[in-house]
């Protein structure tokens, strides 16, 4: 089987779960003897084209399609739209040959997928890692993205949703019939334990509305009323950083909150390992691989009920992202009651061990086989 996969981020250049997913999936598929050509926009002068057995990473043109780190109030600049158009056109024109199917990730690559489906007369698979409804946190979702997403979903022969949570959104908001959607959960590359645990509560993610860091800070304020010797870390970058710093000052907890800015992979591993509690307070989270990473580093997770990852980690605590009292209650319980932490981590690690990229690839392959 030979497939063309179109993405827009790939390690080491990545901003989120999509890049992690593409990396894990393509390697695992290659190991399952699927021949994968992975197309990606060229980012830097440094060439990252590489080939491994069954896997080629192919850069297409030069296009700045990095969609995050924008202030949501501001209109998206034309450059960005042009870059997306350019990238999609380049992919559509450049990709040819005998592929069995085309596999796209998220709205950004869908136009190319639609055109290639027609041009090469092969089935189209799209994986939905997030929708505009997730990214906007439900506040003024952008109609342009929604239309793009809908067009891709309509054209696709099968849609892979990263969770049942996302599947429901695809059905309810995009009116896609259920029989076209398959759920394939994400996996995680295990981090492993190491280092001494400190009284640290960790948030790690893009600092955007979607990820709910604001609620993390409001819960921190309440936790500190009862446990004043713990530290809250807000790790990651994003357009909300200045506002979050303001909020920490306003809440009077600036001396107990550390904003790290962007971190290297090694720093991320370290911080997962020394934290005692991980919180994923997302407003709307299609999956949430970071919760799995934290658990694999021996850190128990408190997970937003509006997230996909809650479907695969039963041994976690869940909260409504807006319920900062309950979030604080659970953070304090994890900080205070060692047996709770220990039992949760022991059991959750067993669940996480089960979530391998091999498994994700096998499930994806099953979807491929449905259409070819």
């Amino acid at each position, binding site marked *: 089987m030979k497939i063309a996969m179109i993405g827009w981020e790939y390690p080491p250049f990545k901003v989120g779960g999509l890049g992690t997913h593409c990396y894990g999936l393509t390697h695992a598929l290659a190991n399952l003897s699927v021949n994968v050509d992975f197309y990606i926009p060229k980012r830097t002068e440094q060439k990252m084209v590489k080939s491994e057995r069954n896997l080629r990473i192919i850069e297409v043109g030069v296009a700045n399609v990095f969609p995050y780190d924008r202030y949501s109030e501001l209109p998206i600049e034309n450059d960005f739209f042009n870059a997306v158009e350019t990238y999609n056109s380049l992919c559509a024109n450049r990709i040819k040959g005998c592929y069995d199917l085309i596999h796209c990730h998220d709205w950004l690559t869908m136009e190319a997928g639609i055109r290639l489906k027609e041009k090469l007369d092969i089935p189209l698979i799209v994986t939905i890692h997030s929708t505009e409804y997730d990214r906007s946190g439900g506040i003024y979702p952008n109609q342009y993205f929604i239309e793009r997403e809908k067009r891709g979903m309509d054209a696709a022969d099968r849609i892979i949703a990263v969770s049942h949570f996302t599947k429901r959104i695809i059905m309810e908001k995009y009116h896609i019939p259920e029989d076209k959607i398959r759920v394939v959960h994400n996996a995680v590359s295990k981090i492993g334990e190491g280092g001494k645990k400190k009284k640290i509560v960790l948030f790690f993610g893009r600092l955007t509305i979607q990820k709910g860091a604001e609620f993390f800070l409001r819960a921190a304020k*309440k936790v500190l009323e*009862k446990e004043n010797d713990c530290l809250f870390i807000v790790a990651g970058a994003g357009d909300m950083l200045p506002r979050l710093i303001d909020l920490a000052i306003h809440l009077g907890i600036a001396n107990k909150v550390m904003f790290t800015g962007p971190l290297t992979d090694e720093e991320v591993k370290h911080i997962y390992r020394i934290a005692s509690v991980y919180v994923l307070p997302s407003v709307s989270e299609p999956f949430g691989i970071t919760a799995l990473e934290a658990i694999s580093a021996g850190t128990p997770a408190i997970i937003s009920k509006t997230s996909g990852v809650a479907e695969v980690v039963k*041994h976690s605590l869940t909260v409504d992202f807006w319920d900062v009292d309950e979030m604080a*209650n659970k953070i304090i*319980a994890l900080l205070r009651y060692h*047996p*709770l932490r220990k*039992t*949760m981590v022991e059991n959750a690690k067993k669940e996480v061990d089960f979530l391998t990229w091999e498994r994700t690839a096998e499930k994806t392959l099953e979807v491929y086989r449905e259409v070819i």
Partner: protein
Amino acid sequence: MPAVCCYFEVHQPFRINRFSVFHIGGDINPYDAYFNHDLNRKIFERVANKCYLPTNRLLLDLIKQFNGKFRISFSITGTFMEYCDRYMPEVMESFKELFRTGCVDLIGETYYHSLSGIFDDLSEFEDQVNLHRETLMRRFNYEPAVFRNTEAIYDNRIAKKIEEMGFRGIITEGTEKILGWRSPNYLYKPVNAPNLKVLLRNHQLSDDIAFRFSATGWNEFPLTAEKFGSWVSASEGDLVNIFMDYETFGEHQWPETGIFDFLRHLPDEILRYPNNEFITVREAVERFSPVGEIDVPFAISWADMERDVSTWLGNDMQIACFNELKEIGRRVKEKGDENLIRLWRLLQTSDHLYYISTKGLADGDVHKYFSPYSGPYEGFINYMNILQDLKQRVEL
């Protein structure tokens, strides 16, 4: 041609409230803050209407119909009787009416359905058994001859204590762990308590009703009274002990499964065989002699696949709560405040620890079915927060 000894466990716990860390040490009425009275009332009324009242009515009819030949036993916890008083006195009345037929026996146990039997010090256990005994005397004017500990938890130490307290029989699980090749269909005596007789639950036949009755994947499905009667009659031994939760009828097994029809026809299907008969637990220990000894150094129970106490003490969270309970007990007794002792005892009900179990899928499903929380971790947080609050009150 065995005797059939049916006994039903009747129990409801005082389920606890969501209790956040921010409530600890607050200006609250602990009794109302700890226990979710609304939920408890709702559950009790629902189960009373689905199970207790209709099943009692059916059993009363059967007892009358068979003119003393259909005989059963109940173990009714203290907390259950309090529920009746508080919400539905007619439920208590219907149990009394059954008892007055003379065909119904009552069984002793810990008033609070607690795990005090596995405390290091058995004095609290003894207090709770006596409390239950006094309650039966007051309400039924009856002194039970047979004891059944919470969820049939049993070991040599408990047997010894129960013998000392004057009981003549004790009930536990007929597990292969203690019987080996031997049959549960006889009485045994504890290795260290020669005057006590042990009744062992026939888990095969009991669970055919309690768990498998509506299991469509079971190769004996559907279970009819006729079929069950023939199995019982074919059993060797002196007596077959069919023990289960009373809520099996109408609550665990819904009316649609046909469980009430099954029960309605059961006496007839058993009594149609010559020499078959029903007996109560008291009659069992009066009539039969032990055929051997059992030695149980480590506690067993009728719960889960393991048939041990791992249901309540299987993970670190449960053990931490249990130790906290014991520790609070030591201090609360020194202090001697009756209100606090009462709260401590209500918190001892084994269900609270049951909700914190993290057992794997097979049993986890059963745990989930009974749990009012979204999972064991929330169960732990609520319960531990309450214990911390009680501890602070004891230390005041």
